[in-house]
Structure formats: structure tokens, C-alpha cells
């Protein structure tokens, strides 16, 4: 901590970015707007939609949000990682459907690749090209070495990548693929021949997810075989922190919305919030949010200032944020009572996003098992 700035790296520019993002998203993605956009069809077995506002995305690109963590040398703004994390928190606060988290995640991975191709891809991202990570196999293993894609001798890809976040919103993918020399990273256009995108039907209405199958697909090498896992691992603190920040924002929405409801809803001649059975759990939600938020900022700050500690701190943030995500959404539904259990109430949009985010890259217990290895040492 001695080497981190006291303000977690939130200087004037970062605070200004956050405040403008908060205003922009609350202006353009109110819960009301969101519900109208993503929840028009309530049928449980509805076909898979991928609903988002592409016009808004262009405005975001123009505001430079995709460029914040792209280095200046690649045409970006070169802000510290906390800038991206601040954006992710605001995205979570509105459950905003967009490829922004995916693209910021891709930025962290590309920043960990040392190649001209990676720099070129970063430049494209700064220019607004939405990009997603395709690093996960069909079993949903989060290990950077686990991939079901192979890179052939001719540099083309074969195989399968699953659980690709916001895939249908993105124009290209960063794919981890294995050859005899180990895992490498590759850039693939969404329009490439031989690439098939099969949308998942997901519970979370605010995002899309897909599996990609590769048949002799052309790809550009970003990280050479044998160096891909290390690049993913180097980016992992950023990926974990982005998801944690999204959960922190969504958690705060759930808390404040439930608090407002508890102030006005009367039961037994009292506002709900009078009852300690409601008040104290809401306080506990607040405590968890604060923990998750501070740990997330700490982890994000470490990415720039204490890289050797960043993975440990990011796993802490992801663990606490995941537990908070479950608890904050469960209490929001419970304390909204019957109305909270309906489709028309906005709570379920955030509830489902929290369910989704908390499993990404491993849930809280998963993070703690790995933290135990880092902190206590591998178990005998």
C-alpha cells in the first residue's frame, strides 16, 4: 500500500470521467428505458434476443470510453486502470447493455500482448471497434490454459469457444488457441469465413452470450504460442476488477432502490424500513458494497502501481463483490415483497445481471480457494 496513491489513482480526470459517465448513463439508460428495451417479451422460453442501443454506443465511442486504457502510443488516452473500473461501475449501476465491459476487458488483454498486431487492435478499439474475449472452453473452466480451440500449422483456427460475453455486439474476438508450443492469442473478425456464432439463451436480459465454432478460420496472431496464458494471466486482475465494479454499481442500485421502497411501502402501519428485520439486512448489504468497492479500487490501483499484488487483490475484490451480488439481489427481491417478484418491477433486471456476473471468472468460493493458495500456500 505504501506504493499506491492514497486516492486509488482517482485524480481529477478519472473523477470527471466517472461523473460524466454517471450522468450520461442515467440520462440515456434509466431503468424505465432499460425495461422497455430488454423486457418487452416476458415469455420464459422466448427466443434469444440481443437488444442494445447502437446509436448510444456510437456516442460512447465518441466520448472516448473505449480509448481510456488504450496507450497513447496506440491512439488512446492512456489513463490508469481505475478509469476503466470507474466506467464499469457506472455501467453496472444502470445494467447498461453494451459491449463496453467486453471491449475494456479486451483492452487489458491486448495491453498484455507484446506485438504490432496487438497495438493495431488497440488502435481499432480506441476508434470504437467492439471486441470480445473468447477464452473459455465448453466446460466453463476459467484457467487461462484451458481452451478447446487449436491453431493449425497454417495459422488457422479450429474448435470451440464458449461463454463469450456480448458476442453479438462485437465485431471481433480475441481467441485463445493451443498448438504444440502452447497457448497463443489470435484476433478473429466476427465476419470471418468458417466462424459460426451460436447465441446462448441466457437468463440475464441485459447482455448476450454465445459459443463460437471455428472451422479453418483465418486469424491474426496477437501473442505467440506459449505466451498466451501469461498474457491472459497478466490481464486477469483487470478482467476480475471490471466484473467486480459492474457488481458494485448494480449492488448500489439495488440498495438504493430497495431503501426508497422501504421508506414508502407501509405494512403494519409503519414504513417497511422501520422494521429492523428490513433495516439491518439493508445495512449489511451496504457494508458488503463498501467492502467490494474499496477492494475493487485497491485492485485496480494495484494494476498500475503494484502489479505483483494485483491478482491477489483482484481475487479479493471479485470474491467480496460476488457474495455481495448474491446478497444484495436476494434482499432486494425479498424486501420488495410480491411486487419484487414480478416481471414489471425493475429489480429482476439487476438480480439476473448480478447472478450472471458473480459466476464469471469463478464465484466467491472459487476465488477464495485460489487466494488460499496464494496467501497460505498450496494445501498439502
Amino acid at each position, binding site marked *: 500500500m505504501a506504493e499506491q496513491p492514497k486516492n486509488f489513482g482517482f485524480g481529477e480526470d478519472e473523477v470527471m470521467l466517472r461523473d460524466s459517465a454517471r450522468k450520461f448513463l442515467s440520462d440515456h439508460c434509466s431503468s424505465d428505458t432499460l425495461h422497455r428495451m430488454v423486457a418487452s417479451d416476458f*415469455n420464459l422460453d422466448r427466443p434469444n434476443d440481443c437488444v442494445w442501443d447502437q446509436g448510444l454506443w456510437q456516442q460512447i465511442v465518441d466520448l472516448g470510453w473505449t480509448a481510456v486504457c488504450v496507450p497513447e502510443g496506440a491512439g488512446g488516452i492512456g489513463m490508469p486502470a481505475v478509469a476503466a473500473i470507474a466506467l464499469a461501475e457506472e455501467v453496472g449501476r444502470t445494467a447498461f447493455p453494451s459491449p463496453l465491459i467486453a471491449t475494456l476487458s479486451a483492452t487489458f488483454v491486448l495491453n498484455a500482448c507484446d506485438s504490432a498486431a496487438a497495438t493495431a487492435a488497440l488502435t481499432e478499439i480506441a476508434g470504437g471497434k467492439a471486441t470480445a474475449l473468447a477464452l473459455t472452453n465448453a466446460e466453463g473452466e476459467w484457467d487461462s490454459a484451458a481452451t478447446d480451440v487449436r491453431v493449425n500449422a497454417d495459422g488457422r483456427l479450429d474448435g470451440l469457444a464458449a461463454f463469450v460475453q456480448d458476442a453479438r455486439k462485437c465485431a471481433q474476438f480475441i481467441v485463445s488457441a493451443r498448438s504444440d508450443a502452447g497457448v497463443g492469442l489470435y484476433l478473429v473478425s466476427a465476419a470471418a469465413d468458417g466462424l459460426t456464432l451460436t447465441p446462448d439463451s441466457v*437468463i440475464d436480459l441485459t447482455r448476450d452470450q454465445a459459443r463460437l465454432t471455428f472451422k479453418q478460420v483465418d486469424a491474426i496472431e496477437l501473442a505467440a504460442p506459449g505466451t498466451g496464458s501469461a498474457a491472459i494471466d497478466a490481464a486477469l486482475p483487470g478482467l476480475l476488477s471490471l466484473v467486480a465494479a459492474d457488481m458494485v454499481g448494480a449492488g448500489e442500485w439495488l440498495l438504493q432502490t430497495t431503501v426508497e421502497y422501504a421508506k414508502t411501502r407501509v405494512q403494519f402501519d409503519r414504513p417497511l424500513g422501520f422494521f429492523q428485520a428490513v433495516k439491518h439486512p439493508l445495512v449489511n448489504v451496504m457494508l458488503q458494497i463498501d467492502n467490494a468497492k474499496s477492494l475493487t479500487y485497491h485492485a485496480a490501483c494495484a494494476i498500475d502501481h503494484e502489479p505483483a499484488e494485483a491478482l491477489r487483490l483482484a481475487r479479493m475484490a471479485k470474491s467480496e463483490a460476488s457474495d455481495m451480488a448474491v446478497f444484495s439481489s436476494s434482499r432486494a427481491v425479498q424486501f420488495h415483497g*410480491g411486487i419484487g417478484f414480478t416481471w414489471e418491477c425493475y429489480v429482476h433486471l439487476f438480480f439476473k445481471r448480478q447472478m450472471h456476473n458473480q*459466476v464469471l471468472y469463478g464465484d466467491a468460493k472459487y476465488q477464495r480457494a485460489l487466494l488460499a493458495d496464494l496467501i497460505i500456500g498450496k494445501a498439502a
Partner: protein
Amino acid sequence: MSESERKDSPEQAQFRSQCQAWLSNNHPGKPPVTIPQGALELSDPDAMQWLQQWQKAAYDAGMIGCDYPVEVGGGGKEGHQGIANQEMQRAKTPYLPNIIGMGMAAPTIFFHAQDDVKAELLPKLLSGEHIWCQGFSEPGAGSDLANQQTFAEKDGDNWVINGHKVWTSLAHFADWMILLCRTDKSDKYNGLSYFVVPIKSALGKGVKVQPLIKMTGQTGFNEVLFENLVIPDRYRLDAVGAGWKVAMTTLAHERGAGPLVTPASGGMATEGETGVSVSSVGSLIDLARSHQRLGKTAADDPVLRDEIIKLMIRRESIQQNNRRSAVAELTDHPMRIPLQSKLVSTEFNQDLAEVAYRVEGAASTLNRNDPNAPAGGQWPLAYMNSFGVTIAAGANEVQRNILGERVLGLPKSK
């Protein structure tokens, strides 16, 4: 010979044999349509009809309503329903669909209606020909049951009802409703009265039923709107203003704490195609065996094993508590365990589903209609649906108040 058999009187023993004989020849077999996990989730009319046929057959065979007097369509044999229930469950028959009718409406009608109303309503209730629903919840009366706003106004020998009920399970099938509403705006508790209301026959004529959409996108609950519905005074249960007292009879029976044993069959494997029971720890263990986590199966992950065993202990506790609550010498307060039942079972199911969907890892993000969703997507769905019951019928926060006040004797929290 089981312990309960050993305690049978000669008359009971004979009844038990009759039940066994009938059931061995008349089990309805597997349903031709998919049956949901519980009657409150019924939405397919074919499934409802098939289950109504089963209830009618069991009723005609004397296994439903046996504790009720013959005059109201019962079997006239006190202390026999428990035996019929045991035998139906042992035979793994389907569940009975008129669950609100038998569990809540019938005892309330029996203890509070006029004799002619009992004779009119109870036979078809018990036979399952008439499906019943319950009109207690309102937009402004969730856990605070006494805050009813639906109003019944006296008009000569009739009552005119206006108002809005919500969370009404089975209303889309129901012929009748038990209805708690306000008849006096000046007295919260003594201003309530209780009615039985024919709703199916009044659809479009003072009654409107519309589905409520759950957070999952499923239906199952309804809103029921009353606009100048006229019903005769004889459909009032007990005195004007006695609604709260009558409702207590309903709730006591709902919680298994009333004097009349609710007819219940069940046990038939009704999980549908997936074979997953979202209230079974065994299904969770199967799931854990088939999911990887940090290089081993989730069933080999010690932290998850600890969680699974905790759930198993809770499940066993619920069963053993129920067993103990039937032995007067082993319970200090007769309501101590019965009043826990809704609370502990709904929280158990919620926690079970939560552990299960987390076991699925990344695949828990998949919806029921995704071909790769583990266990047919049942677990995340069960987790979301579990909030319906931790909220409904007196939110669990209210259940804890009730236990603290009625069993521990602590002062009221309001």
C-alpha cells in the same frame, strides 16, 4: 408392521386395508401430460383435468375428506384421513389438485359456514370437481393481512364487492374463492368479513382474472378484480366483522396446525423430463458429480461438500422435527414446530437452489430453453421461484415475528 399400523384401532386397521386394496388396483399410472412440481404451478388445462379425475376417483373411494361428517360429503370417520394420506403416499399416487380447497377453504367453511352452505359446497370441493382459490393478498396488504381494502357493502340481502386481489394461485382454474375483505373502514381488525365467492360463474360479470407475470417470465399467479360483484348474504362465513377470526382458522390449517388433517397424496415421480427434483439434496449431489471445479468435480470440492452436507442436515432436521412434533411429550409448546414449517422449508429450498446454481458455474447463466443448460435449467429457475414462497403467505420476516411472539412470548414488534 409400521409403528403407525401398530397403533391403529380395529376400525382404522380395516380402513387401512381397504385403502391398500383399492390403491393396488386403482393407481392412475404415469400422467399422459407433464405435471409441474406442485399444484400451485399448474397452468396446462389437460394436466389439471387429469389430476381432477384422480382426485375424484380417490374421493369416490372414500380417501378424501374421510374425517368430515357424511352430511357435508365426508366419510364420517374421524381420525382416518391420516391413514388415507399415509397409504396414498406409500402408493406414490399423484398429488391432489384442489390443494387450496382442501387445505384452507374446507376447514374454514366447515367451522364457520351455515349448514346449507356446507352441504352445498363441500362435496364438490372434496371431490375436486370445484377448484378453489384464496383471495387474501392485495397490493397494499402483503404480509400485513389485516390491511384489506377490497370492500363488501351490504345491499339488502346481498353484498356488493369491489376491489383488487393479487398473487391468487389457481384463480385461472378456480370455480370458487375464499375472500377476506373489509366491511368497516373504521376498525382495522374488527372491520373485516369473510366470504365464499363463486368466481368462474361470474367471469366477465363482476370478476376479472388476469395473470401476473413472475420475474422468471412464468405465469401461475393472478390478479382478480371485483367490480360490483353481487353475492348473497348466505355466502358470508361467521358474523360480519369476524373475518379476522375466520382467517385465523384458514391460516392455522394452511400451516398444518388446525384440527382437521388435510387430504394429501403424492410421491409419484412428477419431475417431468429432466429427472431433477429441485427440492432434493440428492439431485444437487448428482449435479455436483457432473461439474468440474478447480480440477476436480464439484462433489470433490471440500467447501461445496460442507455446504451440501449442511443442506442435508437441514433436510433431515425438517423431517425429524415434523416427526417429533407429533409426540406431545417431546415438545414443550404445541405450536413451536408447526409454526416453523413454512419458514424453514422455504428457506431450505432457496438455499438449496442457490448452492446448486453456483455449482453449475458458467453454465448457470443459461436459460431453460438453452440446449446446454445443465439439468434442463431447473436450478437457476428454482432459485428465482424460491422467492415467491419466502415472500408469500406472510413473508418470512413475519413468520419470525409470529414465532418470537406466539412461541417465545416476546412482545409484539409493531
